[in-house]
């Protein structure tokens, strides 16, 4: 009998190649005759391009071609995958997003030209010889003021820089509830702009085979089929059967490698022009000004309560920065992935949100780990923390009074979503216990004796992932379906290759999916290969983001396995001369029920491909099945994160001394991998709260454009985490799984800031913005001292 693997912390199948330097990332691939591209980018946030003189660059050694917007202006623009409508019913403003700037550059880093040469160095040298006549224009980079009168227009045909003005809920109901409430807590918040920063910079290799007319693109993508669809159909007009997109090993994504980027289309298109493969690899500085950024909201919110602290209504006004152009998923992030989560884990009966999306002269903003849900959670958990203080209630107590109870599921929120399952009180109770919350005051006093300020902060959250039910997202403006595809190919000798449309760039699919297959077919994991990332191998797929791989892609594989078993039972019935209805399948063995007649999975597989004794009139040979799975609902992980910090009031340095996360992932296939995902998310959440911020100056120059300026969390900025779970199986998929990739980044930031505020509360500090850097904390302490002295 094969040992069951589901639920076990099975060591990862993929690790050996990564540990021995045998991973195959895009930049590790070299094609015969390969040339190199260098992208010339705008150094200005906003500039008219009066002309480009290519002659000197073209004459440089090794140069094959120099392309500008004049060469690509008849090709399609980079498409947006989602259309949001304003409250008056008009569609969002959707200005053209050219591959190379056409007459105007709209952000620092906007691609203006591409040089192709025999070597990287030659391409770079030639780029410097390119003469570009820029005429600088005034720029707008600040989210909160982009809509103001007299602001420069990012796109001449988009008045006021407004992309859309969208609402959800009834404003009049919210206003009425706020007007008669016992107490209203108000808050102003900025959700800081972040850069995803996967450690592997983006890269792309385009290649054209003249003999077949087929294009191949190797690219650092989380979803190669989506890139094939967007680039083939909308940008370059290459049909799917002549375009192969391969995303090999990819070194992290966190959302930033979902989107279709200009460089992918440029190297693919130009490879046919040049007649040679073209490789482009971003350096880190280039990544900072060309990878889609994340977050960047400015919000004002009001929370109305009755005398017992029961939430009556929430009203939110948010301005969200889209950057200079609409990236693939951008419009849905601050609407359907944000405002629909504003009920959170609470029974708030009325929620209203107004979201204005604005264009600015900055890099496009799109989904970054959590995408909209961290912004919603941050807003809710900051205002709940403030409300608890204003109402004189403990942090856990106000939450207890407002949680959706465990017996209320399925629970319809006032903002469209129906949560299938969860137990928010149980996750909080467990986190309280694991974090030793009850004895916190002792630790606060002990820290005080050392001159340190200690604080503890809560965040209780729910998120919507397993993206996504196609009919639902279609009605909300998605221009594609978001199902997933799984194909199971049983080979003649019983080993199995699984083709999945999801993509693993750190998530360990080669292990988790193999566990599903091994257990279901009763074969050893070594006999299972998980294949992903190549449109010529995988039938179709929508890729990996929104914690969807297992909840959507894993279920597709599970369904394909069901079909395999169903057909195999028919074959087994024939082999054992029994009725199909009497065939049982367990532990890799088919058995005639109630007898000792058995046949092994491998024998059935062989029979399927060597059909000498086979019910050929009723059944085709072969054993290979494909399934598509489209979920009926999102999945809803939730939980509680409790952070404990110690602040040195002399320096303002905040040390995270405890980080406890208890989450509900639904059913867990591999706890080691799941908890590893949480660790990474927590680091990004703590990073957002204390370290990371993407800063533009008033002229639109990116001030934080390298690891010298943008503070990536290092090992010595972070604690060891206490991670646990309390799981309620998901109701909408047969595996009962919810998702784990984003929870850490969604839940943790407000817990960190609430802990900082708790530490500083005795000094009278009531607000601090992310990232709470030592300078900000120190300044807040000084300001509080000054104002107390003045009183």
């Amino acid at each position, binding site marked *: 009998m094969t040992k069951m693997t589901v639920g076990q*912390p099975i*060591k*990862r199948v*993929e*690790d*050996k*190649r*990564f*540990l*021995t*330097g*045998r*991973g*195959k*990332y895009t*930049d*590790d691939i*070299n094609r015969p005759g390969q040339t190199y591209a260098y992208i010339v980018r705008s150094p200005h946030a906003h500039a008219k391009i009066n002309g480009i003189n290519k002659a000197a660059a073209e004459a440089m050694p090794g140069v094959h071609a120099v392309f500008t917007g004049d060469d690509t202006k008849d090709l399609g623009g980079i498409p947006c995958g989602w259309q949001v409508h304003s409250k008056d019913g008009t569609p969002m403003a959707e200005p053209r997003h050219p591959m190379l700037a056409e007459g105007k550059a709209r952000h620092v880093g906007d691609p203006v030209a591409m040089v192709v040469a025999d070597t990287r*160095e030659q391409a770079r040298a030639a780029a410097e010889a390119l003469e570009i006549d820029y005429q600088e224009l005034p720029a707008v980079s600040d989210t909160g003021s982009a809509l103001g009168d007299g602001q420069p227009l990012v796109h001449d045909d988009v008045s006021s820089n407004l992309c859309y003005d969208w609402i959800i809920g009834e404003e009049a109901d919210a206003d009425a509830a706020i007007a008669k409430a016992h107490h209203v807590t108000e808050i102003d918040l900025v959700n800081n702009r972040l850069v995803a*920063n*996967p*450690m*592997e*910079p983006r890269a792309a290799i385009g290649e054209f085979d003249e003999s077949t007319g087929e294009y191949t693109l190797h690219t650092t993508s989380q979803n190669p089929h989506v890139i094939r669809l967007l680039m083939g159909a909308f940008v370059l007009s290459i049909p799917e059967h002549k375009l192969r997109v391969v995303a090999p*090993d*990819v*070194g*992290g994504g*966190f959302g930033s490698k979902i989107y279709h980027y200009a460089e992918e289309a440029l190297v693919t298109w130009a490879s046919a022009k040049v007649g040679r493969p073209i490789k482009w690899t971003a*350096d*880190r*500085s280039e990544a900072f000004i060309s990878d889609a950024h994340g977050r960047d909201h400015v919000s004002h919110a009001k929370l109305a309560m009755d005398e017992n602290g029961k939430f009556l209504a929430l009203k939110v006004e948010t301005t969200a920065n889209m950057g200079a152009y609409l990236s693939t998923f951008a419009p849905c992030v601050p609407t359907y992935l944000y405002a629909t989560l504003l009920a959170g884990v609470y029974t708030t009966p009325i929620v209203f949100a107004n979201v204005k999306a604005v264009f600015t002269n900055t890099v496009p903003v799109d989904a970054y780990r959590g995408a909209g849900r961290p912004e919603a959670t941050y807003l809710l958990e900051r205002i709940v923390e403030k409300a608890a203080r204003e109402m004189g209630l403990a942090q856990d107590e106000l939450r207890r009074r407002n949680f959706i109870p465990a017996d209320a599921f399925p629970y319809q929120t006032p903002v469209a979503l129906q949560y299938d399952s969860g137990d928010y009180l149980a996750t909080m109770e467990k986190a309280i216990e694991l974090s030793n919350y009850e004895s916190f005051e002792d630790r606060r006093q002990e820290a005080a004796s050392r001159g340190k300020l200690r604080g503890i902060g809560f965040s209780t959250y729910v998120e919507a992932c397993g993206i996504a039910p196609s009919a639902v997202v279609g009605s909300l403006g998605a221009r594609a379906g978001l199902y997933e595809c799984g194909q199971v190919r049983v080979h003649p000798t019983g080993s199995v290759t699984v083709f999945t449309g999801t993509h693993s*760039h*750190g*998530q*360990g699919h080669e292990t988790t999916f193999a566990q599903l297959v091994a257990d279901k077919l009763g074969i050893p994991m070594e006999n299972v290969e998980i294949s992903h990332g190549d449109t010529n191998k995988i039938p179709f797929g929508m890729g990996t983001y929104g914690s969807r791989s297992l909840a959507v892609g894993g279920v597709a594989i599970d369904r394909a396995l069901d079909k395999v078993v169903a057909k195999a039972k028919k074959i087994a019935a024939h082999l054992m001369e029994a009725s199909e209805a009497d065939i049982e399948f367990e532990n890799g063995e088919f058995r005639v029920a109630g007898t000792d007649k058995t046949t092994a999975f491998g024998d059935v597989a062989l029979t399927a491909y060597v059909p000498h004794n086979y019910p050929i009139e009723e059944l085709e040979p072969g054993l290979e099945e494909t399934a598509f799975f489209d979920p009926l609902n999102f999945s809803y992980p939730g939980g509680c994160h409790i952070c404990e910090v110690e602040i040195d009031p002399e320096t303002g340095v905040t040390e995270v001394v405890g980080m406890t996360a208890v989450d509900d992932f639904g059913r867990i296939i591999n706890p*080691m*991998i799941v908890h*590893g*995902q949480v*660790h*990474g*998310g*927590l*680091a*990004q959440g703590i990073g957002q709260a204390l370290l990371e911020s993407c800063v533009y100056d008033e002229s639109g120059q990116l001030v934080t454009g*390298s*690891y*010298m300026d943008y503070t*990536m*969390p*290092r*090992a*010595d900025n*972070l604690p*060891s*985490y206490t991670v646990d779970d309390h799981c309620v199986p998901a109701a909408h998929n047969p595996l009962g799984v919810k998702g784990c990739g984003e929870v*850490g980044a969604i839940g943790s930031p407000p817990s960190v800031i609430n802990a900082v505020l708790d530490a500083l509360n005795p000094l009278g500090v009531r607000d601090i913005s992310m990232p709470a850097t030592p300078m900000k904390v120190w300044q807040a302490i000084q300001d509080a001292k000054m104002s107390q002295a003045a009183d």
Partner: protein
Amino acid sequence: MASVSMTVNGKSVSGDVAPNTLLVDFLRENLRLTGTHVGCDTSQCGACVIHVNGKSVKACTMLAVQAEGADVTTIEGLANGDQLHPMQEAFREHHGLQCGFCTPGMVMSAVDLANTIDNPDEKTIRHWLEGNICRCTGYHNIVKAIEAGSKAMQAGKQAAD
């Protein structure tokens, strides 16, 4: 062009390079040893850490010609055939990697740490890793892996003595 010779993973290699060629580019482009990665352009990320004469070095901070005559070990040269080095094994055992991109630099850096300081504690490990950035793991399991890997290396040394 300048000619350069060194020992890489136990083999003598030589090549012609431009004088400004970085060691990491020599390894990746000339020798096609692509396990050593480039994650930044400011010598911050540590994805390119290798060993030069037994000490960890960011291969983006050295010119290829500066490694003339040196004994270089890259991630490809760490395992003993099919048998993983104890530090590699510890990373696997403790789930100290996810996307794998920072991993070669992390492992090479960790091996140098374990060679330099016997049985380093958590604080020492976190401090040592200041020059290695990981975006996936949150470092939790990397720290655990290095603690375990260092112990295994120590035990191996004692067994050999």
